[in-house]
């Protein structure tokens, strides 16, 4: 795709502003009605999906140029996709998230990307991870666990920890808990260890698509060599990358599962039984990449066509990603199954959840904005009366942990797998 391919989206945008709000049917209060962190922080219309579509049009038509303000408005966006859900509530002919992604990639290609991400990208290119850590330590979290090393051995399943769980010492226990559960379930799986490479999803969302392509090629080749048919990950960023971006990039036929899907199934099959009570009132934060951006990929290579004279349709029919088929119930089923856990919901959940603030490269590029977004979510979590906010993505958890460390809201931040292990 090229930016020009989104001209029709831009010209058909009606400036209705739905992209700024959660789906209106679900508005339950004044406080938590807003859906787009970017416009809440940046305030000018250019910080919304609709505004960015106009920016794209204005740039394509030579009405304006890329100024520092334009760069700020394009990249100060978490790429969380809330706008995409809200827009598509009423439209079949708009792809705001894809258009914004294309605008980013175009600016990056033209040398207008933010410089703050460059050290991170250098780390990715040199050490294959997003945390600027030496690659030889990538497998350290799994030392002494006796896992198959898929760089030398074969297995049908690969456990993929992802950069954050592999290198973030405070969160590494989640990866260890995950593999203990998988082992207990008797699954034949292994890990790539230090040969594991970042999924590349975060680089993609920053507009650096080639980096994602390189990572995808490397990972897919390694999995193929090891005979891997299924990838299991506790990281939602990796999950969405494998599930949506890899097939689009290289036609991957690998099955992709998030740990919550496995655990939910194990519970339902009676293969995972809880023996301990966890007396805790929790609220669940839907990661964008597990929920609305975690829908299954459907290949499509079609063109627009007109029906009924001017109504916009596609030949063949274009798959509709509107958040309806993300992973929402599995984590909730798990929480409800843990003895002692009381799940209380926030107002903005499932396909219209407020983002944690870590996405789109904003954690690296605009830390204040990232912190603001996390703070808003923690405030909402606290309003439920919960003692802990639980999620299923290490990037969400890291952002919340940082925000609780120096912010006004003091909540326990927990990974759902860690909570499961607490109850086993």
């Amino acid at each position: 795709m090229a930016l020009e391919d989104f001209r029709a989206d831009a010209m058909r945008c009606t400036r209705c502003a739905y992209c700024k709000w959660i789906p209106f049917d679900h508005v339950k209060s004044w406080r938590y009605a807003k859906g787009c962190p970017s416009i809440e922080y940046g305030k000018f219309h250019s910080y919304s999906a609709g505004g960015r579509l106009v920016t794209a049009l204005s740039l394509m038509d030579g009405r304006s140029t890329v100024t520092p303000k334009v760069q700020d408005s394009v990249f100060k966006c978490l790429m969380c996709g809330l706008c995409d859900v809200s827009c598509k509530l009423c439209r079949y002919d708009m792809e705001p998230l894809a258009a914004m992604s294309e605008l980013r990639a175009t600016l990056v290609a033209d040398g207008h990307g933010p410089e703050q991400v460059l050290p991170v990208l250098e780390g990715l290119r040199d050490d294959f991870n997003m945390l600027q850590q030496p690659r030889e330590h990538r497998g350290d979290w799994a030392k002494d666990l006796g896992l198959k090393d898929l760089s030398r051995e074969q297995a049908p399943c690969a456990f993929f920890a992802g950069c954050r769980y592999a290198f973030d010492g405070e969160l590494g226990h989640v990866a260890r808990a995950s593999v203990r559960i998988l082992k207990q379930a008797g699954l034949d799986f292994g890990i790539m260890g230090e040969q594991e490479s970042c999924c590349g999803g975060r680089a993609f969302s920053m507009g650096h698509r080639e980096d994602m392509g390189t990572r995808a090629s490397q990972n897919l080749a390694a999995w193929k060599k090891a005979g891997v048919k299924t990838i299991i990950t506790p990281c939602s960023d990796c999950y969405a990358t494998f599930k949506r971006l890899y097939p689009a990039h290289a036609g991957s036929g690998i099955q992709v599962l998030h740990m919550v899907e496995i655990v939910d199934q194990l519970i339902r099959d009676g293969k995972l039984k809880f023996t301990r009570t966890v007396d805790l009132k929790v609220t669940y934060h839907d990661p964008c990449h597990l929920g609305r951006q975690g829908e299954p990929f459907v290949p499509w290579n079609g063109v627009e066509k007109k029906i009924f004279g001017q109504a916009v349709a596609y030949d063949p029919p274009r798959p509709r990603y509107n958040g309806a088929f993300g992973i929402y119930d599995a984590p909730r089923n798990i929480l409800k199954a843990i003895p002692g856990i009381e799940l209380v919901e926030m107002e903005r959940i499932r396909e219209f959840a407020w983002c944690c603030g870590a996405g789109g490269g904003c954690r690296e590029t605009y830390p204040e904005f990232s912190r603001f977004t996390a703070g808003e979510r923690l405030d909402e979590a606290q309003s439920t009366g919960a003692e802990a906010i639980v999620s299923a993505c290490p990037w969400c958890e890291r952002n919340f942990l940082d925000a609780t460390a120096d912010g006004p809201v003091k909540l326990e931040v927990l990974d759902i797998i860690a909570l499961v292990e607490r109850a086993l």
Partner: protein
Amino acid sequence: MEISRDAYRAIEDIVGVDNITDDPAFLDSYAFQWLAELVRPDYSHYMPRPWAVVLPASTEEVQAIHRVCNKYGVKIKPISTGWYHWAAPMKDNEPTLQIDLRRMDKIIEIDEKNMVAVVEPYVTCAQLQAEIMKLGLNLNIIGAGCSTSIVASASTYFGAGPSSYYMGNNSDNLLGQEWVTPAGDIVLTGSLSSGCGWFCGEGPGPSLRGITRGNMGSRGGLGTYTKCAIKLAPWYGPAVLEPQGPPPAYRLPIPENTRVYTLGAPDWDAFAECYLNIYDNEIGYIFHRQFNLAGADLAPALWLTYMRPEGTMNDVETASKNPEMQKLAEQARISFQLILHCRSVEETRLQEKILEAVLARTGCYKIERLCEQDFAEFSNMYLQRLGHKHCNFIWAGGYMGSWMQAGIPDFVKNYAPVAIDGFYRDQKRDDYLVQCGGDALMGCGSSIAGGGYFGFEQFVSYDPHCQESVKACIKHMDDAIQDERDHGIPLGKEYIYLMIGWTDERIWSDFAKMPQTFVLHFQRKIKAAFDPNELGDRNYPWLPIGMGQPQAIAAD
């Protein structure tokens, strides 16, 4: 015209450097507006680019900004939630400051006992409704939907919606107002001006409703409205709406005291009779002709596909060819939605009986498929919250509303066939309008408080990305005006849309031929008093001295 940088710096001093911009791409995001392509040279999607955009946070900041604009000769154009080409600057050669009110987004007060809420301009109907439902209250959400600003609909536009029938228009529901005149004075209206609170628009104190808004509202053409009080209505439903199901067609469970119907009529006479009977018997909470916006030929195929989360527009095409669907389309050709929502289950049952009697008497009927639980719950959600109004653009991204003259049922039933025939003719001329049947008339059951008077808007869907389609829409607008003239029907919405692209002289020439031009001369005097430097634009209409009749009144 070049404006001194001093003006920019003076405004920057008021709001801070982060709350003003003149970055060209940022300005374009305000110039780009729905309907612009219908009125601008070369079918451009851009209205004139603002000179700058500012984000004030308070009434005092708005006042200070107005004063700077008076000093430097910069026009002003406030925008809140923002929709329509007339929300943008009007003329290319008039430097205009776009005042984006999104930072003024607070609910100031909810007076539960007196059923009044006070809000700032960026509070949406959805937000206020969510808060007041917790108190057993509701508000009229305008036809454009719950994404809209309450201040905008109450203070500066018409304010009709599906619940106007029960709750009144927001133009009626407007109580006290806080208004920063173009000259930079803060004016308080009604009881507010006497220090008695917001509860009454008419006093004690000056009732300026006729000045600040009149019938149509000033649409941002006469200063900035910074707060208003809105009259609320009773709500007998749950404190919090809990929609069910996946997107896009969320469903709202129907409680025992509520009934949701899609009703059909065999002809327009029966429709009018049914309307009058429902109105006379004072039943109903929401009365709206909603789903016909998709066109009578295609509406059932569209909405039943829309209810499936994986459904695509291609599926609508397939569904529309299904004989059963075509039968349903015929059944629903003249249809509308009615929601009964009552204080008690007993009252609901009574209203239900009355409705049955009305249907029996008028020959109207329940459309079975569209009254089934799934569609009824979807309709309930759609109409109680009005959170899917962007579906107005569902076919191709562009819609323009023609007709929409309001009147008594006999007036509406007489113009509806004219509007339908004209639209059908225009659709068949070529393939550049969405071919949805000539009847895409949609509208609420009331254009004044309490009903008995209403109108329908013809939903003309076109593709803004296709210039031929844009031209076809403009041609339809011209044709609709001609149809109206040929049938002695007052001009409709298409006319006020097209006017935005005309010169002052052309508008004045037309206005001068209209009845009751004294209103426009009176408005000229109002403008002179409150906007001496002409900072507002022609969305607040007036006539120059000497134009129009009667001359005696026109003279100063």
